């Protein structure tokens, strides 16, 4: 029962960012993603886990295998209860950062995944759902 295999990881520190991408990569491999896609997924996870850790202090990653009418894939959700993203358009466009990175984490990870949904509310938090299909 593949669908029951849901992996949850609390992201509280920088070390958890590495743990998040190691776990995501292992699950991607188990689901049959090739090495190129495993790298894309691990890189996107690295960006999004850091995003939660850096701006909200902590967050939660949930990985779920997908099976939609025979179409298989992987969904990863990042949730935090941080300040939210003030200017989402600007953050998604890239090149703007309040956290000392390249300001390309969100836009970059979107390009690596097949689907990217983001919900953010001021002072309530941010939830980002990404999916990759096999």
């Amino acid at each position, binding site marked *: 029962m593949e669908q029951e295999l849901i992996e949850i990881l609390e992201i509280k520190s920088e070390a958890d960012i*590495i743990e998040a991408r*190691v776990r995501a990569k292992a699950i991607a491999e188990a689901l049959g993603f090739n090495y190129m896609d495993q*790298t894309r997924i691990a890189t996107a996870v*690295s*960006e999004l886990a850091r995003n939660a850790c850096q701006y909200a202090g902590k967050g939660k990653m949930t990985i779920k295998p997908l099976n939609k009418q025979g179409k298989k894939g992987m969904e990863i959700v990042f949730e935090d209860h941080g300040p939210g993203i003030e200017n989402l358009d600007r953050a998604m466009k890239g090149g703007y950062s309040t956290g000392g*990175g390249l*300001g390309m984490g969100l836009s*970059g990870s979107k390009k*690596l995944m097949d689907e990217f949904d983001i919900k953010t509310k001021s002072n309530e938090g941010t939830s980002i759902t990404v999916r990759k299909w096999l």
Partner: protein
Amino acid sequence: MENVSIPILKSGNYLITSPQVALHDKLAVQFKKDILGRIVETKAEGLVLDISAIDVVDSFMVRQIGEIGTAASIMGTQVVVVGLRSTVAMTLVEMGFLLRGVQTARDLEKGLEVLQKTGRR
């Protein structure tokens, strides 16, 4: 994990370093400081940074590499990044990231050739 230090070897006028563990953010920043410290200490003409063991290079790592290259070049030291995996290179291209401030070459040998050519000019 906290007390890892990555060896930075000296050979002639060059420094060579090759991290073999995943670099979490603090370690990456420490590694950058260590490299720049070694450059000051050795007055090396060039540095080869081999990242063949690194399977994920994200925006944070790109920024650290860029800062190493830029700071080193201000001190007169050329930085060549070698050993990029094809999967890492593709991922960087797809995200639209450039490695600024550094040259790239296929492997350590080619990297040293690049430094030797630059040095002779």
